[in-house]
């Protein structure tokens, strides 16, 4: 008995000490649970959704997307001008901005950050490819000279990858002969100008950020009372749910669909669900096999049960796509039809293509871990069986899938590949060019179905250099219509982004492009 009391006492002591021993008070700390840990924190290298949350608050860009919208607004730049030929962009910087290490953020620092990302030439650098040079004209003026007009340049600058401004002093302090850009140090440290500064990254556990007192927007008169941010890496979604329910985390990023239904309406928890710009497609092999015939592709498009897909496969956590580009983007073609299931039409098209009773087998490939894509495959399999077409579903890990679709030989490419696409910035060309321009056939890029339409190519080429926004929009809308008509893929759905918060977290706004990010400066806690 005495031993039991002793044991109980020890346990109580443990718990007591844990409660007593907190340095930064919990009520001024925002704790976020997410399953995704970035591979690197280097703003010039990282190119993955997992880095968005830290990138958005530690680093700042010349311009950014307005919270909750796809509209670009000034951030470190106060204003900008473009030369009439669209090739020279001049930005006036905000004065008095300092990095977390105390050094000033001036035009030289901005130029340095871009030179660094371009020299490293990894991940996000492809977006900076049209830049010929970037230089500081004077202390607060920075000028980009481009190789060609780049109509979406402002969008690119607002994107989260590769465009954040990093402290040159910090880079130089940690550079070595082998590593002139301090990639090794910056892969686990961050020095930017944002409202929160980087404190530590305990790998696999958490990243801690602390409020940057000298932030240029200032802290007087704002509602924000968040002194510290802890981003905890919790792989298992059900654990995130437990932590959220007990209030040990304030925001959970990965609540499973099942848990989402269960915590709906629970007091103290707020659920935010918004359609994302992430697109899921079934890409046809347009160059080999039965799907090289547009009528077969269209027959398959008419066979899929879209209503069942959204309601049963995705349980309502998605919206059907309209055309190849994301709904909600500027220049998205809103006039395209939404495909519906029509087996009669499918039979007619198959008969025209010379397969009145089907009689062939197609391979459907999807990436492991994407349950939604497996179940869409099964749905399609059932519909195609009615048309006499056999669908063979193959699951592959990403490297293997990539190997299959990046071969230059269409004979090796599967008939149907389920794949997804995240836009880096809010411009439909970010969807259309890499996936539908014939210069982007494997192994170059993502036109994995070997789609080619010279008219589409010409429209996209024009759109790449057209500086008049309205004229460019027309080109892009026309390209979307042509692509829909050629049916190189079935445009499936936009999954929703689901964020679960405690009700004491205020000021959260979902951002369609910085999906996983938080505008922490505008947020506060009411506990």
């Amino acid at each position, binding site marked *: 008995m005495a031993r039991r009391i002793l044991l109980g006492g020890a346990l109580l002591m443990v718990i007591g000490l844990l409660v007593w*021993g907190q340095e930064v008070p919990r009520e001024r700390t925002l704790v976020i649970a997410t399953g995704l840990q970035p591979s690197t924190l280097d703003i010039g290298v990282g190119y993955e959704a997992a880095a968005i949350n830290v990138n958005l608050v530690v680093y700042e860009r010349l311009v950014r997307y307005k919270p909750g919208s796809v509209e670009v607004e000034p951030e470190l730049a106060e204003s900008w001008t473009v030369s009439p030929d669209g090739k020279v962009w001049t930005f006036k910087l905000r004065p008095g901005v300092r990095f977390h290490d105390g050094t000033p953020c001036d035009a030289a620092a901005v130029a340095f950050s871009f030179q660094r990302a371009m020299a490293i030439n990894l991940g996000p650098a492809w977006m900076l490819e049209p830049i010929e040079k970037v230089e500081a004209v004077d202390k607060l003026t920075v000028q980009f000279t481009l190789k060609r007009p780049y109509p979406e340049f402002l969008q690119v600058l607002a994107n989260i990858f590769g465009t954040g401004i990093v402290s040159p002093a910090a880079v130089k302090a940690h550079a070595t002969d082998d590593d002139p850009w301090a990639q090794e140090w910056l892969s686990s440290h961050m020095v930017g100008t944002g409202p929160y500064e980087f404190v530590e990254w305990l790998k696999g556990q958490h990243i801690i950020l602390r409020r940057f007192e000298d932030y240029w927007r200032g802290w007087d008169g704002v509602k924000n009372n968040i002194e510290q941010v802890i981003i905890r890496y919790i792989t298992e979604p059900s654990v995130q749910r437990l932590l959220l329910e007990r209030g040990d985390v304030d925001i959970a990023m990965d609540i499973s669909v099942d848990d989402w239904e269960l915590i709906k309406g629970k007091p103290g928890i707020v659920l935010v669900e918004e359609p994302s710009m992430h697109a899921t497609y079934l890409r046809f092999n347009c160059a080999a096999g039965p799907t090289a015939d547009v009528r077969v592709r269209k027959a398959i498009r008419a066979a899929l049960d879209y209503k069942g897909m959204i309601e049963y496969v995705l349980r309502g956590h998605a919206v059907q796509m309209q055309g190849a580009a994301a709904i909600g983007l500027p220049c998205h073609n809103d006039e395209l039809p939404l495909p519906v299931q029509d087996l009669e039409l499918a039979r007619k098209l198959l008969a025209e293509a010379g397969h009145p009773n089907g009689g062939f087998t197609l391979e459907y490939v999807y990436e492991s871990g994407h349950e939604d894509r497996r179940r869409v495959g099964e749905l399609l399999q059932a519909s195609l069986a009615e048309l006499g077409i056999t669908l063979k579903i193959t699951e592959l890990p990403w490297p293997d899938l990539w190997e299959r679709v990046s071969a230059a030989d269409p004979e090796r490419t599967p008939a149907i590949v389920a794949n997804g696409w995240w836009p880096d910035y809010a411009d439909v060309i970010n969807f259309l060019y890499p996936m539908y321009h014939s210069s982007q056939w494997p192994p170059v890029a993502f036109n994995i179905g070997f789609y080619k339409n010279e008219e589409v190519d010409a429209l996209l080429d024009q759109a790449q250099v057209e500086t008049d926004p309205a004229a460019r929009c027309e080109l892009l809308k026309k390209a979307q219509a042509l692509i829909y008509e050629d049916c190189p893929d079935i445009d499936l759905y936009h999954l929703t982004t689901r964020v679960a918060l405690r009700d004491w977290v205020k000021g959260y706004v979902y951002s369609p492009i910085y999906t996983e990010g938080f505008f922490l400066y505008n947020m506060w806690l009411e506990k």
Partner: protein
Amino acid sequence: MWAYLLRRLGYTLLTLWGLTLITFVLTRVIPGDPARIAAGPQARQEQVEQVRRMYGLDKPLWVQYGIYMANLLRGDFGKSLWSKRPVIEDLRAYFLPTTELGLFAGLMFFCLGVPLGILSAVYRNSPLDHLSRLFALAGVSLPVFIFGLVLQLIFYKILGWFPAGGRIDPFIAPPRHLTGLYILDSLLTGNWRALLSSLHHIFLPSVTLAYGSLAVVSRMTRASLLEVLGQDYIRTARAKGLGERTVLLKHALRNAMVPILTITGLQIGSLLGGVLLVEIIFSWPGLGTYAYTAVTVLDVNAIMAITLVTGLLYTGVNLVVDLLYTVVDPRIRYR
């Protein structure tokens, strides 16, 4: 003895060398282009080639292997294609937590499993023995994943006694880095808050991890001890009038120890397998998730390093167990 040790070390090196060869070839022949993945999804061909050159992936396989081995002998595992950091840096961050969890769980199942086995052997066919049998049966048949989640549900969600996961409370600074094992480091530096928080956090994951092995070890102890207790020399010892305690602990247990040690060594090996799931459930920042990521992104250098270090650990444990035989049973001599 020394000659034996040297020979065993030689074999260990040979095993590890074989491991490097097999893993190296396997990571290079499986489908997928590591350079393509490392360069980023939208990289152009020239960027991919740049990465390929940077990591030496453009050279013939045997040259790559030669360079790799030369670097390895200098203790350099190369750079991770995924994080772009030296592999050794990531490995240090992820390997030590796994080691700590493994050691703690190992200690737990050995220190609890053996006494439980002894008790069941001594009180054979008593309610205690039946209870322990039931306990063991549950231990070997309960999947780690379910068991971990159930513990979490009871002790975190309902009772609130233990944290849901992590290695230390995020509000408490980890102890100063000496060995990288939080419990040891906080003991050495006298950081009691960190020590308590670490123990608090390691408890549920190690119970989850240890339970299956505990069951096996306790059953093995019981069986082995019962066999020894039936021997003539035990009867002789008792006939000499030795106390039951002495008979049990000095005569019987020591002789029963060899199979127990063998099974313990094997169980430590199997802990390495179970640790992946436990790490996921309890958000333990260990090798499991790191290894998983390395495989999915074809981070060849990281895969090599993980395999080698795990192999080293496994062979090391086996060697220690073999050497312990001579300690518990002087009749065993290695030449």
